[in-house]
């Protein structure tokens, strides 16, 4: 009898302990990232706490959502008031932050003197150096290179590195592949947890594929606005950029933009943006953001000073709201 009771208690204890193990197993995945090539690690500095549901495009948010998708969250007074857009020494001026940040990182990568990276037989050896930004600041790098596979990895540390209208500070880890025959970078990925562009802090990654034409850029990052502390999320942006003589064409093929107050909208550019190097804003191009119920807002570039925004608020395919014309600088 006593033995049966003991058995019962042991059985209960067994299942209580098993439940604890299962709970701890789940919690340990969430709390530690459960591993990850880069670490399924987490980033405490910036957390997106805003709405994660799809936004409904309305007459009150159509401007914020469409222009926010272009400016990665910085619109209105914070966009022009915090120095996000600044004329720089080389005449490059930026409004298209997702593009300009990508350009700055790309340029920094292409500046690296690949011949300085140890080749055979120094597999695994490190190389380091410093390059200077086109309009100020510097970037220091340390790279490891495997000559057999072409795979490299390392770090880039930006110190007020100024290029194409943005000034970047902070450390990123990089990895990618070098074409061992031509000594050119084929693809590169930047991972960062605390990169600053002067007005906001970025956590996320950006990868660039140089092999395809036009160049493909993947971008996924949280932007914390230094002025308002609001966090915006550029999620799974895929853009293709074509570099012309004095301009860049940008085609945003997919992605979602999260506004903390309204939720997310998906993004497409039916007509690619064209941004001239010396211009503040795009000269042509259209972006459409789509919310729940197929509601849409459409931002159409008129010229490098103005754009037009209209919206389909009921999702029937007709843009019945607007169009209203805005100065880029007033958005």
């Amino acid at each position, binding site marked *: 009898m006593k033995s049966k009771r003991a058995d019962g208690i042991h059985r209960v204890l067994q299942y209580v302990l098993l439940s604890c193990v299962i709970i701890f197993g789940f919690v340990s995945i969430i709390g530690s990232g459960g591993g990850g090539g880069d670490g399924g690690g987490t*980033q405490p500095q910036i957390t997106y706490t805003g709405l994660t549901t799809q936004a409904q495009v309305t007459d009150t948010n159509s401007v914020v959502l469409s222009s926010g998708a272009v400016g990665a969250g910085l619109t209105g007074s914070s966009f022009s008031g915090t120095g996000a857009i600044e004329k720089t020494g080389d005449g490059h001026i930026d409004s298209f932050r997702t593009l300009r940040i990508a350009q700055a990182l790309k340029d920094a990568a292409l500046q690296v003197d690949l011949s300085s990276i140890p080749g055979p037989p120094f597999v695994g050896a490190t190389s380091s150096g410093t390059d200077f930004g086109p309009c100020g600041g510097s970037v220091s790098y340390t790279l490891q290179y495997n000559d057999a596979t072409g795979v490299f990895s390392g770090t880039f540390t930006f110190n007020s590195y100024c290029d194409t209208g943005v000034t970047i500070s902070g450390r990123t880890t990089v990895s990618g592949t070098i074409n061992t025959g031509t000594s050119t970078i084929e693809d590169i990925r930047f991972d960062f947890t605390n990169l600053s562009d002067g007005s906001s802090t970025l956590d996320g990654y950006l990868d660039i594929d140089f092999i395809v034409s036009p160049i493909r850029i993947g971008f996924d990052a949280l932007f914390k606005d230094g002025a308002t502390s609001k966090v915006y999320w550029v999620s799974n942006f895929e853009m293709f950029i074509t570099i012309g003589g004095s301009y860049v064409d940008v085609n945003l093929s997919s992605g979602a933009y999260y506004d903390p107050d309204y939720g997310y909208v998906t993004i497409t550019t039916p007509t690619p943006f064209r941004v001239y190097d010396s211009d503040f804003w795009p000269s042509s191009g259209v972006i459409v953001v789509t919310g729940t119920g197929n509601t849409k807002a459409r931002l159409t570039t008129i010229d490098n000073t103005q754009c037009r925004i209209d919206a389909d608020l009921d999702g029937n395919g007709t843009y019945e709201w607007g169009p209203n014309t805005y100065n880029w600088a007033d958005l």
Partner: protein
Amino acid sequence: MKESLKSFAGIINLRQILIGLSFLLLGTLIYLTDRPPNQIYFVYKSVANISLHNTLPNLFGFFGNSLPSFIHVFSFILISAGLLRCQKRGCILICAFWFLTDFIFEFGQKYKVLSLTMVPDWFSRIPFLENTKNYFLSGTFDFIDLAAIALGTISAYFVFCATMKRRES
């Protein structure tokens, strides 16, 4: 009491549990030495500074990237199986459970939007669970992690078979 503990030890497989716990400690060491403390919720939430990052060299190098994925599934299979002192069929069920759990969490990092919509808002008010959104948002999906999870599951099964005790009929 002593006798009760002794008899409880008789209905579990202590060896499997200890192997699982040992590997779990190894996994913890990876997070303490090879990962920046601000990337690990457990570490930066702890009251004391327990991180050894930049204090000790990176002990696991390249393997430190995906070893936690291997260790997590390996350890929890052995601990669960050891607690139940199950036979092979039971172990296969346990393997499937932990494999699917880790697999789903890893894939959740690939489909961030879908994952985030499935996380209830009240999680943000519960310690530990508050990090769930951040886990999916900031984590990066990696096929090597998936391979590590599969390898961890298979390895755990073999270790289980080597250490299992047959039930008396």
